[in-house]
């Protein structure tokens, strides 16, 4: 439920997070009715790194994202955000979604949430323009600074579109783009808000291997060239292992492991819990062989998520 | 497109005559009706004139407009059938939906029609206020059968007449009457333009009299009067005056009876209607009405009017039908007395001196367009029939 109280502008109570930490999640618990989505989860995301969150369906990954971006307000624990060096650390719990975004956190959605009836470039401009100043009056009067901003946003949007490889589709309706293109467009829109932290929720879902490679490359470039910290939810292990600096593994709302890809791959608890079997390769193969199965699971997951959001907003 | 004259009337100026010559005009000459029969210039015999009607023919209040429209059309038809006119009468209508905002296009439609020499209407005071100036500007007479708002005749509308007295005439006497009849008065209006106007005039007089009263309104869209009836019943009032139309009044009468109200119930001309008794049934018994109208029930002409109306429209005449009938006939009376071509100006002038004995009243206007004789009568429902008690003044 939205509250009109000013939230989140005070600096977080308690100890300052360690230097270089963008998100500091301390002992967070999130419940819906009787269901506990996140159970005393703690993790730290460092500035500049690519951190991946993995776990089976229903493990609480998307709930974690929603908690980080202000969609959900966890009942217990602390989430402290310090997106840029030198920012005042603030608590995002109870903060409104758009405010969190303005602090430098952008995200994409597991189920793509573009503005389907708008063109691709308009989608990106919407992101860019949330950082602009000119209001409706100057737009109606066509004042010079409004025009300058409009120009600037068009230019930046075109840059971003070519950055994600969609320049040729700038004037196409977003809803008419191919699945993979829509995923990239969503990233471009998120990048438009000029974030320091980018949260990607299964960006590779439903894309083909070629697109996956391009995507991995794109994420790397965002991370390296733009210096954006990336928090990634992804099921595709190959992708995750290839780009993530560190991984966090959730299961049934609890963190069961944390570490570098190598550490995680060797972690017996992860193999047992996440893949549901001790035979890692067999499990992997099974997943890969039945992508359909996974989609269906995801869909039901998504619907539950929609449900929850409906009650929360 | 702007042009709608029948033939080229010779222009007054020499230049215009020259023009008329050059544009091949000729007066129609072949007889026998049809295209040329009724319209040739020159003699006034056989010309066609139109009486217009402006009122609500659609929207929430359309039935009031339809009641009046039917009567106007009937009067025109009867006048033509009688055969003592040396001109032909036509009827036309303009629907103003009863609201001020929609009145101007309706009025413009009648004004621009050159053949319209007088208008019956507008039905409502608000619509009248919105367009009376336009009519005055066009020198077109408007004779309203039902716009009773007191302020209408004080605004200098030079072509406005009405065959019903203003609310103030009825309001003052009604207030005197109810103040005499009861110690504690409950004054209710139906929040319509008419109801609040009448209630305001009653209230003014009650204040002058120093009577003890409560004033309240009931939304005109209300269909459940139980609450207000209960309130009246338990207030201990011994007189209740309802300023509003019969449709609300009959429901209110039922609710009052159910609530066990024992005092006197009085209402105004908007409710004095056979439909009230039909709707209220036995609950309407011994309701009284103040009405500035002659006793129509005893007038033999009224019976023939009611029959003719019922015959033509297959529905009984209703609120304001007789008034509209009178207004139309007064206009026709004036037109009969005009020598030569009938113009709008002549009709206005004629209405200022008209003296026509109508069904509801003698139509004779004061200088400001107000009807001269404003005697308010008291009626009462006795064994499901409306009967005359006498003038209100005689009861005070």
């Amino acid at each position, binding site marked *: 439920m939205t509250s009109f109280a000013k939230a989140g502008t005070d600096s977080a109570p308690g100890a300052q997070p360690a230097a270089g930490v963008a998100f500091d999640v301390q002992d967070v618990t999130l419940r819906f009715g009787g269901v506990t989505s996140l159970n005393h989860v703690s993790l730290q995301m460092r500035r500049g790194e690519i951190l991946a969150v993995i776990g089976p369906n229903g493990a609480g990954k998307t709930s974690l994202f929603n908690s980080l971006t202000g969609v959900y307000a966890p009942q217990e624990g602390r989430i402290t955000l310090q997106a840029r060096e030198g920012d005042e650390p603030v608590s995002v719990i109870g903060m409104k979604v758009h405010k969190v975004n303005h602090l430098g956190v952008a995200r994409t959605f597991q189920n793509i949430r573009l503005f389907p009836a708008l063109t691709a470039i308009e989608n990106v401009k919407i992101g860019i323009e949330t950082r602009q100043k000119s209001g409706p009056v100057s737009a109606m009067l066509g004042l010079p600074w409004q025009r300058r901003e409009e120009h600037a946003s068009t230019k930046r949007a075109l840059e971003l579109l070519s950055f994600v490889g969609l320049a040729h589709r700038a004037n196409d309706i977003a809803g008419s783009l191919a699945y993979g293109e829509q995923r990239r467009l969503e990233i471009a829109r998120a990048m438009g808000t000029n974030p320091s932290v980018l949260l990607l929720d299964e960006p590779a879902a439903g894309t083909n291997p070629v697109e996956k490679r391009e995507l991995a490359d794109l994420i790397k470039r965002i991370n390296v060239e733009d210096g954006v910290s990336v928090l990634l939810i992804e099921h595709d292990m190959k992708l995750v292992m290839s780009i993530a600096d560190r991984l966090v593994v959730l299961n049934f709302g609890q963190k069961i492991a944390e570490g570098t890809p190598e550490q995680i791959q060797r972690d017996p608890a992860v193999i047992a819990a996440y893949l549901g079997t001790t035979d890692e390769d067999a499990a992997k193969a099974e997943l890969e062989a039945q992508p359909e199965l996974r989609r269906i699971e995801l869909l039901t997951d998504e619907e539950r998520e929609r449900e929850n959001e409906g009650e929360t907003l | 497109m702007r042009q709608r004259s029948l033939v080229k009337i010779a222009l007054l100026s020499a230049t215009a005559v020259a023009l008329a010559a050059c544009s091949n005009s000729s007066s129609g000459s072949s007889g026998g009706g049809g295209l040329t029969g009724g319209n040739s210039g020159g003699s006034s015999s056989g010309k066609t004139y139109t009486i217009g009607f402006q009122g609500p023919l659609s929207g*929430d209040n*359309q*039935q009031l407009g*339809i009641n009046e429209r039917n009567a106007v059309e009937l009067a025109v038809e009867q006048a033509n059938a009688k055969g003592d006119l040396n001109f032909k009468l036509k009827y036309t209508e303009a629907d103003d939906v009863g609201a001020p905002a929609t009145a101007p296009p309706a009025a413009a439609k009648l004004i621009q029609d050159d053949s319209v020499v007088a208008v019956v209407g507008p039905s409502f005071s608000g619509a009248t206020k919105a367009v009376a100036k336009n009519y005055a500007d066009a020198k077109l007479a408007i004779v309203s059968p039902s716009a009773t708002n007191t302020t209408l005749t004080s605004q200098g509308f030079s072509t406005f007449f009405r065959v019903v007295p203003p609310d103030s005439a009825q309001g003052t006497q009604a207030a005197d009457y109810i103040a005499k009849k009861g110690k504690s008065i409950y004054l209710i209006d139906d*929040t319509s333009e008419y109801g609040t106007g009448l209630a305001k005039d009653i209230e003014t007089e009650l204040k002058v009299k120093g009577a003890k009263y409560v004033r*309240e*309104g*009931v*939304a005109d*869209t*209300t*269909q*459940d009067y*139980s*609450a*207000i009836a*209960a*309130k009246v019943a*338990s207030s201990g009032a011994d007189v209740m005056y309802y300023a509003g139309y*019969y*449709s609300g009044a*009959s*429901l209110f009468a039922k609710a009052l009876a*159910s*609530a*066990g109200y024992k005092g006197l119930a009085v209402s105004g001309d908007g409710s004095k209607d056979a*439909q009230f008794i*039909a*709707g209220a*049934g*036995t609950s309407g018994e011994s309701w009284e009405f103040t009405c500035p109208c002659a006793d129509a029930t005893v007038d033999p002409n009224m019976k023939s009017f009611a029959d003719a109306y019922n015959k033509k429209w297959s*529905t009984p005449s*209703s609120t304001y039908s007789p008034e509209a009938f009178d207004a139309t006939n007064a206009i026709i009376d004036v037109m009969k007395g005009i020598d030569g071509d009938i113009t709008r100006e002549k009709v206005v002038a004629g209405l200022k001196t008209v003296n026509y004995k109508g069904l509801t009243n003698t139509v004779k206007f004061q200088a400001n367009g107000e009807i001269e004789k404003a005697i308010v009568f008291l009626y009462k429902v006795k064994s499901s029939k409306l009967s005359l008690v006498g003038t209100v003044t005689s009861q005070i």
Partner: protein
Amino acid sequence: MNDFIRYTIAGLTLGSMYALIALGYTLVYGVLQLINFAHSEVFMTGAFGSYIVVDTLVGGHGRQNGFMVVVVLGVGLITGALSGAGAAWLLERVAYRPLRRRGAPKLAFLISAIGASFFMSQLAGKLFNRQKNNSFPNFFDNRVLFSIGEADVRLLQVIIIVAAVVLMFFLDRLVQKTKLGRSIRAVAEDAPTAALMGINIDKTISRTFVIGGALGGAAGFLFALFSSLSYQMGFFPGTKAFAAAVLGGIGNPRGAMLGGLTLGLVENWSVMFLPSQWTNVIAFAVLVLVLMFRPSGILGERLGRAA
């Protein structure tokens, strides 16, 4: 205190009619997530349909004996319900289904329903008459049945409340227990899935309209008995009932019942404290206030869940 009881009885009477009409809004909303704007005209059709039959049956204004009163009331309720159901069925066929087939945007349904509402009301005006005060023959004596304190309770009030309660009870059972009720709930919860489970969505929607229409038509009969009937009679009760449905939580039948009663009571109680011309203002103000604090109505929405 006597006043309070008096107003409460009047409020319950009015409120139970609101509730019956509100059920029509709520049922349709449940399955279609649409405001059925023409429901007020379904209500009006019920009143006229029952009137014509009862008028033919009773004729004149003669008082009837006890047995005939019961018969006439039964016939009135049934014919009212039948005409309401028929009107609602036609409405769904003409103004809703073609749009559904074309996947029209939500507001297109609203406008189509508004158009249908104009049409039905004016057609009734043309076919019957445009007088505002048609009323039922006085075929029974509206006598005082009993008194609570000094507040009288009259026969008509009892008839209305009892009839409304019985109808609502049956509806509640119908939605809860029958196969049709299950399919209605299933469609309300998740139409695509319901379709996969073999539920005929078109049929279910059509039947939902018919049930809502029958209740609205029966309410039309009761309302006309209690007040009067005219081609415009639907508009205000319809608006109020819509408000009542939202107040209770639209899509939730029990909410509609509660909302209707609440609104009826609020309207009558408000007369105790304020001049009665403010009744409607109070009614709408209460609605706004309730929704500010409970954005999904008193009982919350969802046909499937709460019923």
